[in-house]
């Protein structure tokens, strides 16, 4: 028994060291964000002492160059409303196509399945041109694009759950005089809540971090997301300003870490549930 305990203690120590090593890349960026930009590339591992220390200058530069708060706001807007649209529309769609079975609904279901194996590069050029023609190159239009491109996974996951709901519950509601719309919102949607959480988490992780789709679809002179702004910091301003880059990287990572620490239970459960069904 004592031997076993010692053993487990050794593992704890080992994993503690590993955890610190795991966080190290991010800590390194944090340290460098307080350094004068000339020192960042030359001495990345040095602690910023008096000569190298610049207080919050890098953050101020980074925020100015990328218009960080505006960009952050657009990213939040796009993510929140796209996920909301996906949840509402695809859950309704999935319920309908699993209750009214005919050739049309079966085709929709299989098209959704099919879309999950198609890589984005296959549609990126035509998609961006169509979005341009239909004037969907704004954050509002992007929500429609995300609904369309993200529908495959969401419909598939909701369908898996709808199949497991016993028909009797819905029939009872219908006999009591509910219309299908009332039945859906007062009976079906509440039962689907766990799946909603799973879908919301998977889609949020994707949309918040997505780079290529918004880059190609949005009118990037007017609107940028965080990923686009960071990529622009390297390409768009001549020589790369490492100081501003470090500041913006830290500012982008902090909200994610806070969000993660607050809802990690749901996030991890959602990932597991999503994997089991996918």
């Amino acid at each position: 028994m004592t031997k076993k305990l010692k053993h487990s203690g050794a593992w704890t120590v080992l994993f503690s060291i590993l955890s610190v090593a795991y966080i190290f890349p991010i800590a390194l960026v944090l340290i460098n964000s307080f350094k004068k930009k000339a020192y960042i590339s030359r001495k990345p591992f040095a602690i910023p002492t008096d000569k190298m220390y610049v207080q919050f200058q890098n953050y101020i530069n980074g925020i100015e160059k990328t218009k960080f708060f505006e960009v952050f706001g657009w990213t939040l807007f796009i993510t929140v409303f796209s996920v909301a649209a996906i949840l509402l529309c695809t859950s309704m769609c999935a319920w309908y196509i699993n209750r009214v079975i005919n050739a049309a609904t079966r085709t929709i279901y299989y098209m959704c399945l099919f879309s999950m194996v198609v890589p984005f590069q296959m549609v990126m050029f035509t998609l961006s041109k169509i979005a341009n023609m239909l004037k969907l190159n704004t954050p509002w239009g992007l929500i429609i694009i995300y609904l369309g491109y993200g529908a495959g996974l969401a419909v598939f996951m909701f369908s898996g759950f709808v199949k497991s709901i016993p028909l009797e519950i819905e029939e009872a509601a219908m006999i009591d005089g509910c219309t299908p719309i009332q039945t859906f919102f007062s009976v079906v949607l509440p039962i689907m809540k766990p799946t909603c959480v799973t879908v919301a988490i998977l889609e949020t992780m994707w949309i918040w971090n997505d780079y290529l789709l918004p880059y190609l679809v949005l009118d990037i002179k007017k609107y940028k997301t965080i990923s686009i702004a960071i990529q622009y910091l390297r390409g768009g301003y001549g020589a790369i300003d490492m100081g501003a880059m470090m500041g913006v990287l830290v500012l982008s990572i902090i909200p994610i870490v806070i969000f993660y620490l607050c809802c990690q239970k749901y996030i991890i459960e959602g990932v597991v549930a999503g994997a089991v069904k996918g």
Partner: protein
Amino acid sequence: MGKSMKKYFPVFVLPTLIAFTIGFIVPFIMGVYLSFCKFTTVTDAKFVGLSNYVKAFTEDGTFLHAFWYTAAFTVMSVLLINVLAFAVAMLLTKKIKGTNIFRTVFFMPNLIGGIILGYVWQLLLNGILMQFNRTLTYSSTYGFWGLVILMCWQQIGYMMIIYIAGIQNIPGDLIEAAKIDGANGKQLLKDVIIPMVMPSITICTFLTLTNSFKLFDQNLALTNGEPSNMSEMLALNIFNTFYGRTGWEGVGQAKAVIFFILVALIAIVQNRLTRSKEVQQ
């Protein structure tokens, strides 16, 4: 019940269907068609048969090089990620103090976007390589291992979570019965635990395979294909063909179709292979 619902099609299905048509069906069909055309925008397409596909392989060697580079990267990262994630999951399901904290830490990189991670690791890896007077873009080998390390760091946590769920689902009496029958640690792992977590292995290999094969953001941020397209993966190669040279859009689209077929083939073959190894419960 079906009858009364039927007329609600416009409410329930139409919004999704319209968005799906704009966001997927039309671009996909047009994409397949345009791969046989020469064009610079969608409206000036001229049918040219298979010449785009021929050009994709013959004009310059970058596409084939990107293919082998991607294939090597995929094999390497799938093996490393799954073996390491499984090992960590095995250890973290034992009674070790602080398991929850370790899980939290290992999972975190998954939430951070590929572009951000690319620049984070660029700083670290360039800092290390600087001690040897090298940079990440000195040769494609550095870019290759840089990407493998980055992907391991990002994905191990995600796969670990799935493996942990799989391991915890194994009934305790099954393992006890095997122990009473005299199975040693190695036999227990090979004959009980691995067959029982086969569904998790299916999912994790599928996710890592497709994630690695389709990798774009990390590749773009870490090396951007430097030096001279030698660390370019398929997705980035297709992107550069589309937007890097005018007049080559058709070739880019042909490459994209080939890319799609490869991804679909991998998905189907992988599913067949590992599903057949799953045990009935």
